């Protein structure tokens, strides 16, 4: 292993409904492919999602091999999303990763999914030492690197914001995922309805707002419900972010995760950054959601410090919290 050379890392993402495979060299993405399971009704069923992943990984891998500009032999290590996430999905992903590591005779790297979002953001945007607002279907966390670890400064006390948007979207008869549909309806909303606004220090909660909004169905218009829901819940996120910036005095804020695609949320976090006099960065839409490149990029950093895992010890970690990860590369 030559520490000066930029390693080529293959990353596998599969914690929930997205299967992603990517090959990166430093911050250069050589290939990044993914496919996402869409439930025909209801939310994500763990077994259905895992079935989807096991069917689609081989096809995806074949596509990657066909289109990759370099030889597979040039890959230096295999990184995979080891957790947190849905157990059945994690196990499928880990199985593919182990098989590839054995076949190519390369080391295996077990990456924390949440931290991968942060590391991709740090690699492809100019954000230095940021407070990260990570908003997705499964997670909503305020993260910053403090005292040797990525600390969770604040997080959702019940459901993730994306999950809340999906649930409300379903009750309103909108298709999955709820976020983009709610954003579209909200743009035509005018009347601000009364909904709960829950901030506890730097943490937040959304399930109360979902219930209150569901009670207004058939009383108020869909547009007004969507508009009000976004305003209250995103304001709570913005306030908690501002508190985190004010406490930590970090020089920038980074917005990532699937819900980072929402323009209203971007605008609010931009306002917070201006108010606090810090830089605002947002991960571009195609890399903000779950993808293989983020796993490969975090894997690159871990590769450089030799943070490998033996296959026999590479069991998945469905409940691996951001603040439990030993960060040896920073």
């Amino acid at each position: 292993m030559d520490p000066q050379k930029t390693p080529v890392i293959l990353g596998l993402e599969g914690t929930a409904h997205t299967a992603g495979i990517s090959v990166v060299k430093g911050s250069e993405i050589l290939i990044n492919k993914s496919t996402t399971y869409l439930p025909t009704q209801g939310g994500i069923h763990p077994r259905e999602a895992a079935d989807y992943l096991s069917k689609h990984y081989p096809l995806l891998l074949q596509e990657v091999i066909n289109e990759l500009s370099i030889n597979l032999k040039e890959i230096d290590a295999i990184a995979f999303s080891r957790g947190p996430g849905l157990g059945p999905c994690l196990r499928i992903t880990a199985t593919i990763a182990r098989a590839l590591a054995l076949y190519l005779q390369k080391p295996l790297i077990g990456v924390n999914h949440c931290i991968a979002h942060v590391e991709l953001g740090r690699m492809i945007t100019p954000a230095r030492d940021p407070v990260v607002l990570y908003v997705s279907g499964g997670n909503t966390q305020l993260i910053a690197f403090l005292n040797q670890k990525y600390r969770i400064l604040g997080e959702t006390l019940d459901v993730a914001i994306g999950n809340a948007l999906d649930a409300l979207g379903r009750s309103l008869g909108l298709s999955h995922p709820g976020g983009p549909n709610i954003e579209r309806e909200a743009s035509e909303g005018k009347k601000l309805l009364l909904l709960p606004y829950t901030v506890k220090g730097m943490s937040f909660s959304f399930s109360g707002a979902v219930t209150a909004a569901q009670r207004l169905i058939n009383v108020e218009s869909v547009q007004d419900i969507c508009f009000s829901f976004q305003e209250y819940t995103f304001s709570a996120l913005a306030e908690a972010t501002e508190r985190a910036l004010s406490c930590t005095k970090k020089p920038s804020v980074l917005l990532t995760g699937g819900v980072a695609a929402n323009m209203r949320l971007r605008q609010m976090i931009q306002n917070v950054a201006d108010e606090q006099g810090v830089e605002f960065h947002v991960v571009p839409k195609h890399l903000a959601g779950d993808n293989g490149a983020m796993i490969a990029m975090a894997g690159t950093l871990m590769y450089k410090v030799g943070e490998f895992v033996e296959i026999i010890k590479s069991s998945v970690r469905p409940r691996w919290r951001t603040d439990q990860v030993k960060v040896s590369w920073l």
Partner: protein
Amino acid sequence: MKRNPHKELAKGAEAIIYQGRFLNFKVILKKRVPKLYRLPEIDYRIRTQRLRSEAKTMVSAWQCGVRVPELLGIDLEKTTLICKFIEGDLLYTAVRTHDSIQKIFFKVGEEIAHLHANDLIHGDLTVFNVIVTEKLIPYIIDFGLGGFSGELERKADDLLTFYSTLKAITPKNKQLFENFKQGYINGYSEGIQALEQMRKIMSRARYIARENRLE
């Protein structure tokens, strides 16, 4: 030309802090400023609501003998609160600079014990919301998310917020929280139960294994 007689001292997440004089006291003016990211309707409601609960909680705490800056007045229209100026360092700074920091944490524990024994909740008990004077007396500030409650859960929330921010700022957090706990148990008859409740809340966080849950 408009003249602002007060010197800007600090800018927090939700308010600007000015220093000035009022009734011949050295005072702090805490002005909750409008937030651009919120719609004006939501913004105004939150600012006035927080100002009210801060004033109520502070006065009650003061009446119970908890060390808080004395409230001198509020201006609802300007969402401004006026209280006495406390000379000292934030606990956040004191952690790095003070030799007798363990003793200070014991005293902070006693102060919070007193607050909780009177069913008062702080709501945002971080290391940024305690001022330590030169004589090592802790004063509790910033009651915007505060209120009244007899529930152990709400008290345990305070303890957890305090512990989380402490963990983020110093490797000495275990020892210091131990000192805090001693002061807390010392001053509050249900202190042990509140600390136990804090552990239950921690075990309820996302991604904690079911077998490790305490309830």
